[in-house]
């Protein structure tokens, strides 16, 4: 166990099956990463060290929040995960093409989940071991309805450890939204997305957790030949939030779009971390990252694109831009390329800037109040990223949440 940091002890936790026992053993050995672990250099977990791991023991009803309204608005089937426990009622009457299973009883699925899970990530071990709720969703054909996974919860003394494995059969297609809006102390979802040949998934992850919640999500993705993932994360809530996604492209012609926006204020900390493994040639990946930080908020983008030796004809792009609205806001951007092949097109970049004073003057000289003018420029800064989302219902959600965030600081792009 690493020194200098308190670690929650799981030795008394009742865990069944070899996969979860192995995860517990790994957790007991490694625990939370300390400040000297390179990939956690910018996001310190000290505050979690003293926190006991306290999963909910039973399902308790909560009042539905924005997530459910959003799901209804887009005509999606909503699966509710409350304080980390899957609500079985929401697994009834699933849309055609969706089959739900219990991950607790399924050793093979647990094995598959661990193979997908970001390696060396604390949540991969912790949430697999604790597994407050476990769900396997098998997807076949073109799912006629969107799926919404709504992670709720109202008890700050709890930590939520839901594990969800979603497997898309060859040529399956689905549109999905994850909405994290709980007020638990620690929200630690572990998600696996396994896309078989020619499967296609459009998804957004919206993080609007309570202002006292720590959100640490770990998502693992596997893309087979010609599989397509168009993913977008929007991180707005939480005291501290890290959204980490690892993607492995294992079949030729796979395409991965993995973009993100983080919006921070107060003393919020947002971390977007991605690892994209181009294990095989002729795959494309594209990451567009936008951050807006006010007050003393801090943003982190760590994006690694790894191109294996034989992964020729890889196209890997990543571009991070951050907008600082306050002199005390801070951003760390670390786009990284690790290329072992010689015939690739890869590019990365990172910029940090402020609102343009000339643009602001132009708008205000037309009579537009400064707060509105600022909101218009912030929205303009985000809009090309949001516009890249092809599914209208998903891009609308992103724009709504971003607009709400601006309205909370008195920034509104409309004169009312």
């Amino acid at each position, binding site marked *: 166990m690493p020194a200098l940091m308190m670690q929650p002890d799981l030795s008394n936790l009742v865990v069944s099956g070899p996969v979860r026992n192995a995860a517990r053993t790994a957790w007991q050995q490694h625990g939370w990463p300390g400040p000297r672990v390179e990939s956690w250099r910018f996001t310190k977990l000290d505050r979690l060290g003293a926190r006991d791991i306290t999963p909910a023991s039973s399902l308790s009803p909560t009042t539905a929040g924005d997530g459910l309204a959003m799901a209804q608005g887009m005509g999606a089937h909503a699966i509710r995960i409350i304080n980390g426990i899957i609500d079985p009622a929401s697994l009834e009457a699933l849309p055609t093409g969706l089959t739900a299973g219990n991950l607790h009883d399924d050793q093979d699925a647990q094995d598959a989940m661990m193979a997908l899970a970001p390696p060396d990530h604390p949540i991969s071990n912790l949430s697999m071991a604790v597994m407050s709720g476990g769900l396997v969703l098998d997807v076949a054909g073109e799912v006629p309805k969107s799926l919404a996974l709504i992670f709720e919860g109202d008890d700050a003394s709890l930590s939520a450890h839901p594990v969800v494995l979603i497997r898309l059969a060859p040529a399956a297609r689905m549109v999905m939204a994850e909405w994290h809006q709980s007020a638990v102390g620690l929200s630690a979802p572990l998600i696996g997305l396994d896309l078989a040949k020619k499967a296609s998934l459009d998804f957004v992850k919206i993080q609007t957790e309570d202002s006292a919640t720590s959100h640490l999500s770990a998502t693992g993705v596997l893309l087979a030949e010609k599989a397509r993932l168009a993913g977008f994360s929007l991180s707005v809530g939480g005291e501290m939030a890290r959204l980490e996604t690892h993607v492995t492209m294992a079949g030729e012609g796979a395409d991965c779009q993995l973009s993100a926006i983080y919006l921070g204020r107060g003393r919020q900390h947002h971390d977007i971390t991605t690892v994209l493994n181009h294990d095989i040639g002729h795959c494309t990946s594209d990451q567009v990252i936008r951050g807006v930080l006010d007050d003393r908020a801090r943003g982190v983008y760590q994006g690694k694109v790894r191109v294996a030796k034989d992964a020729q004809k890889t196209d890997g792009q990543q571009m991070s831009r951050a907008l600082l609205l306050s002199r005390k806001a801070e951003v760390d951007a670390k786009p990284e390329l690790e290329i072992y092949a010689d015939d690739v097109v890869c590019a990365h970049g990172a910029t940090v800037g402020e609102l343009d004073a000339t*643009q602001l003057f*132009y*708008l*205000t000289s*037309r009579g537009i109040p400064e707060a509105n003018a600022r909101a218009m420029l912030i929205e*303009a800064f985000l809009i*090309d990223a949001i516009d890249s989302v092809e599914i209208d219902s998903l891009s609308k959600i992103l724009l709504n949440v971003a607009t709400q965030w601006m309205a909370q600081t008195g920034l509104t792009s409309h*004169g009312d």
Partner: protein
Amino acid sequence: MTALLEVRNLYASVGDKPILKGINLSLNAGEVHAIMGPNGSGKSTMSYVLAGRDGYEITGGDVLINGDSVLELSPDERARAGMFLAFQYPVELPGVGGMSFLRAAVNARRLEAGENEVDQLAFVKMVRAKAGELGISDDMLKRAVNVGFSGGEKKRYEILQMALLEPSIGILDETDSGLDVDALKIVSDGVNMLRAPERTMLVITHYQRLLNHIVPDHVHILADGKIRKSGGKELALEVEESGYAGIDDAA
């Protein structure tokens, strides 16, 4: 009679460098004034200072709209008080849709006047009508503000904004720069259409040619931060013939 716009012994500096050194101007409703001056005379500084841009220190004097000082007002407050600046270099706003920009500006003005926001359909109609007169296509209106516009298109778009906002004081900063003869004609016609008994305009230019199209009631020669000479429209022709050097000597 209170002047619509009065500039009273105005001094302004950038950093430690004095640029405006005691400007006096009085613009009454219905009048068009031209300010001519060589490069570096302080023309653009004056337009920015009047509009309230940051970065200029007012070291003396005053600017009044209808007799009230506006020096303490922010640019948006001055605009809503009736001032409009057509930029020499209109600013590109990638990601800001043209129609929502125009609507935000018009609604800000209307709210200030205690009127309702303009409804979207009526607004589109109004913009199309005025845009048509200025040769601005629907395609241009749909684009982000000034993005991908040619020099002439940008200037026409400035005049369109002025037509929509109906300011009582229009300041045109080198509106002729970068325009060919045809574009100059379109822009000038647009400005002339906006001449009205309740409005005043301040046309800032380096060259006399713009004043063949927008014929001013008064011409002022600005040099080294001061109005050196004032007169009627014939003063512009004098400059055309003898250059600014002659005027300077006469001051």
